[in-house]
């Protein structure tokens, strides 16, 4: 019985950070935005995004009754395509929207474009967002790793040719 209690305690300690973060997270930044006739607060749970990872935010309407769309637009010159956010009602905060971007595809400057459309009209709000890329390996190292299969292929070709020559000599 004691081992069961210990296991429960360890599990609780390990899971607590995740439980605390699961949706009662403290936002890093709250931005007031206006999209046409609709006003809302944008809760950014991280004030910078990490390229290659998902990005989440919450939109809390001040003026309710609109449909929300969300996109991340790359800054001019950034080699990326616009990203569509998945918008869903927040399960814990009545009237709020959760916005989830599966993958911020590359590092650089982005603009969060929030569109509101409802009986009172429609509009867009823009919130700048920066995405930080992971550390870059030197390009020479990238090539060194990337060409590993080529080295293998050349070694295999050489080995096969040697085997063939030995077979021919034996014959």
């Amino acid at each position, binding site marked *: 019985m004691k081992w069961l209690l210990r296991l429960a305690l360890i599990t609780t300690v390990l899971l607590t950070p995740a439980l605390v973060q699961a949706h009662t997270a403290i936002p890093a930044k709250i931005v007031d935005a206006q999209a046409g006739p609709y006003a809302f607060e944008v809760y950014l749970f991280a004030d910078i995004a990490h*390229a*290659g990872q998902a990005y989440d935010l919450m939109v809390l309407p001040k003026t309710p009754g609109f449909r929300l769309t969300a996109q991340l637009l790359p800054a001019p010159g*950034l*080699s*990326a*395509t*616009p*990203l*569509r956010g998945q918008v869903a009602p927040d399960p814990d905060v009545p009237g709020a929207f959760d916005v989830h971007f*599966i*993958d911020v*595809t*590359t*590092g*650089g400057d982005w603009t969060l474009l929030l569109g509101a459309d409802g009986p009172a009209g429609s509009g867009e709000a823009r919130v700048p967002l920066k995405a930080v*890329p*992971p550390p*870059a390996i030197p*390009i020479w190292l*990238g*090539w060194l*790793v*990337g*060409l*590993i*299969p*080529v080295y*293998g*292929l050349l070694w*295999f*070709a050489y080995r*096969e*040719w040697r*085997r*063939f020559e030995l*077979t021919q000599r034996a014959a």
Partner: protein
Amino acid sequence: MSTTAAVSTPADLAAGRGESRRRILAGVLLLYFGVQGSVGLAWDIFWHVAVGRDRFLTPPHVFMYTAVAAAGLISLYMVLTSTWRYRRGVAGVNDGTTTPWLRLFHAPVGFVIAGLGCLTLLCAAPLDNYWHILYGIDVDLWTPFHIMGLVGGLIVSIGIMYLFASEANRARRRGDTARRLLGMTGPEWGFCLAVTNIFDQTFTVALPALSQHLLLSSDPAVALHPLLLAVGLPLAFGILVRQVGRTEAAVVGAALYALINLASEGFARLGTAWLVAAEGYSYRPTAPPLGINPLPDQQVVVGAVMFWLAYRYFIAVPTRRARRAAPWVAGLMAAAGIALADRQWLAVATTRLENAGNVLMISAILAALVGALLAACGDGAGRVLRQTER
């Protein structure tokens, strides 16, 4: 542990045929997934240009990597079960028909190679994603992990080539060559299909030479695209002709590739158009038109026909020197023909260079020399594949 046994008794023949059927069935599945992977690659390239990339698991990536995963699992299954059968002493699975690997496994070398190719592709995927995260979606095709992935695909097709070459050789040795279609046995057709991947990889690797890297050098001006084609296409022709033992094999391979390529291009466009409409994607401003060029990559057919004609002429000459020279001369003629028929390069170059036609003609000379050398290398590779039964 089984030892090499000469296939002489009816029981040995039956065991050999049974083992061959098992391997050929797995090989056909590998071929299917190989083609799916190639089609997925064509679709992925088109999707990048037309729609962009908002995640790693885009529809073409899903299509492509499911093929890679399936091919990898089939290869793994065959390596493990062949090892088990070898250790049990199953007839037909012996040192003459398997290759030892890592001192642990005994399996047909084709499945080992194909499995390693799939592993390479699966390793290249996250690394390529990392590179895109750093440098954006419109990176050059000539980046480390794109090349890693392309070489991985090539390794898979080399594995399948080994598999079908071994089965074709074993069938020849057993005398099981009565059933033919247009003069080729089933394994020989499988081999030809596997070799089409070399054409596919060559055209894919050469793509940037139609845009960012038009010239190898500017003074003197030498076109890069025909040179790159001269590396891969004559190599494949040489392999085909030597392994199958028929000069027409080059044309058969080229025709198969042309059909698969046309189907790939059509699938890429139809799949993109359907998904854009169904999922509400938008096209990029730089998206190409959805129309298909009915003769994409026609240089391969031109090159194959020239290779075939030159080869036939030279091997008909009853001297050893002429027969030895056959792959060299055929490669030279094929590469020159490929270069002169390179309308894709010419269409781009005429908008940027003053004497594009002259540049192409000069480049054809260099391409011919490269083609001659690579055809000879292909002939050598074909000789190796002609005698393998592992």
